[in-house]
């Protein structure tokens, strides 16, 4: 956890710092591995909202992928806090909740994208591309 990679992106392009928040470590690894953007650098992963908040303060990421149902602090609350800390942060909600009301609420609190679990690598990359754009 909290694995900080060295900056491998090439210098000319802007590097985005990505934080992955999900209570399942399989899912965290899945997201970390399947994204294929050179300009993305995973600066940390967290398994719940409280952890995510602390890590966020430390690493100051630009992008966050966020699970919604997590122990301690759920995703919606976490999004609210992250946006307060850094309004420019872009958050992709990745959740198994197909409930439209939750999606709308996440968007209202400041999420920028929504991806339903289960997802394909392609869907993930498209959603992230949309976020960086």
């Amino acid at each position, binding site marked *: 956890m909290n694995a900080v990679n060295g900056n491998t992106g090439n210098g000319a392009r802007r590097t985005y710092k990505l934080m992955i928040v999900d209570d399942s470590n399989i899912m965290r690894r899945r997201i970390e591995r399947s994204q294929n953007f050179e300009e993305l650098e995973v600066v940390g992963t967290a398994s719940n909202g409280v952890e995510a908040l602390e890590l966020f303060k430390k690493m100051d990421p630009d992008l966050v992928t966020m699970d919604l149902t997590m122990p301690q602090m759920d995703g919606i609350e976490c999004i609210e806090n992250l946006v307060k800390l850094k309004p420019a942060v872009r958050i992709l909600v990745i959740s198994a909740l197909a409930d*439209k009301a939750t999606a*709308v609420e996440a*968007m*209202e609190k400041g999420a920028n*994208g929504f991806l339903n679990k289960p997802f394909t690598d392609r869907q993930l990359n498209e959603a992230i591309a949309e976020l960086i754009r």
Partner: protein
Amino acid sequence: MNFSGADRKRQLVTVGVGTVLMLVMAGVLIAGFRLATQMNANVAALQTASALQTYPNTLVAQLTSLRDRLETRAYSGQALADLRATVEKFDREMKQLGEFSHSPQFEQAQALWQQYSPVLDPVIDFTDQPYVDSDEEGSTLSPEGRTHYADVKRAQLFTQENSEPLQALLAGLSTQLQTEASTGANRLRVLLSAGVLAALVLAAAAAWFQLTRGRSERLAREAQEQTRDILRTVKEGFFLLDADYKIGSVWSDALTRLFGRSDFAGLAFEELLKDLVPPATLATAMKYIKLLWGERAHENLMKSINPLGQLEIHVETASGAREARYLQFDFHRVMGPKGVKHVLVSVGDITSSVLLAKELQESQENANQQVDMMLGVMHIDPVQLMSFLDSTETGLQLVNAILKEPARTDAEFRKKLDGLFRELHSIKGEASALNLMSVAHRTHALEDMVTELKKRPELSGNDFLPLVLKLDDLLAHLRSVRELATRLSNLRESAPTEARGGRSSGKGGTDELSRTLQSLAERLAKDHNKKFRLSVSGLADIPRAYVPTLKDVLIQMLRNSAVHGIEPAEVRRANTKSDVGEVRIEFRKSADGFELMFEDDGAGLLPEQLKAAAVRKQIVTPEEAAAMDTRAAMALIFRPGFSTQEQVSMDAGRGVGMDVVAKSVYAIGGKIGVTTNPGKFTRFKVSLPASEETSTAVA
């Protein structure tokens, strides 16, 4: 509208051209007016100048006349007065001309005329008597007269000398004035032509603008008409939402049909949905709408989280019934120069496609059921199946007969219902015993309908119609089962003999009963998550006449045991019983006939529980219940409408069961009794007479 920009431009051009032309016209008119005034003055001046031309000669003539008179000593007063008048007139008119003309000719004429003054003035200023009269000499010139005569002579000579030059100067002046007048006239003509031209241009321009305006108005009107046609014809409801989430002033007619109202202009979106959706959905929808105005709302993303993509609403139909309808809302952002200008909302009625999808799913399930049925039928012993189909057919004939029975009073209708219910219940029991779930489910649904009817405060013949339809469906299904069974049995017969080696049935009907019970036991154990073993003995000895009744009785008892009697394994373990329950069925000869014993080692019957259930079902009053002893309490289970299972399932809880069992036992002349030990066992004993001359009434 597309026209507003072009319209505005065209208007500006019209106003511009109009203004320019008006200014030109005004210029022409003012210049013409001034020119005409000038020409008027010119003409007056010309007249004056022409008149003046004659004056030099007149002066000469008058002076000559005056000299003649002085020489002839005639009266000179009149001639002098004439001269004075001419000089004054000359003076006055020269002054008048001076106000108008400053040309060199005039200056010269004036200068010359001024030279006249010193010569003429002494003449016209003369007022004395020119003559003195004496007798000797007659009239002679007085000294003053002589001076006067000299003045006149000098003046006559001067004027005679200068008359021509002055006349020439004045003639030149009038020629010049004439030229000026004709130039002015030419100019006026040109000016008038220009005015006419400008007026023509103005008229032409006005006509052209009128024409183009008419054309663009027609285009605008046509466009408006087309827009209206589109809005009237399109099947979706269309409208625009403004930043206050209010509906704009234009919407498609379909919206009225979809929502049954027409007061959309300025209506808040929230108001539109308020009565149609639950509050939670409404709140989500409003949050969603708000998000559409934000910059994070990408079209695709917003489409994927649209909470109104398939909205179920209930509307009242013309007949007053409530009907479910499905609406699909789509939201498209209309961008303006300053971000989102409007949100275009389209509402479609997708009821038919939703229902189609449901139908598709149902038919899919139906197909699956068909396969299940086929597999089910394949597993049933053909003889057993045929016997079931035969008895069911008889049962349904009975049902039909019950339905056809005339009934008028409420009590008669209720009796009908009770009869139907018993028949159906019995069919369902047999069907589930055979594991023929497709039949069991259909019968169960019919039973549900009957139960619903029973709850109605009033009954009429029409209430039975839906039952008849459902019954037809069941009959059709049974026919297809029979067809399938026949085909399967043909298939089996044509198959090689070894394939059906183990399936020979030794003792016909009774062995069949054992198998039915065993398979029912297996299914019941699985369905109710119970573990028990069924052991049977002596069933092969049941006299044929008793088989149909005892089959029903045993099926009902077995179901009761599985549902009520045998406890779940963990409960059994807690009560130090073995996990697997025991159900025993024994049939044997007795001294005065036969005896059927059915026993399970389950929970047994608790008199107090039975009493409580009977009170709850209003079978007995609390007082009656309190007065009952154990034996009477036990007997409650044979009372109609008694059931301790609150939830209705396929196998129990209908409140029909042991009363039917008891009745059918009595019907064949038997007796039934129950003994129990709470927590240990329940045992039913059925005693039957030896005689086989018993009715085979179906319960």
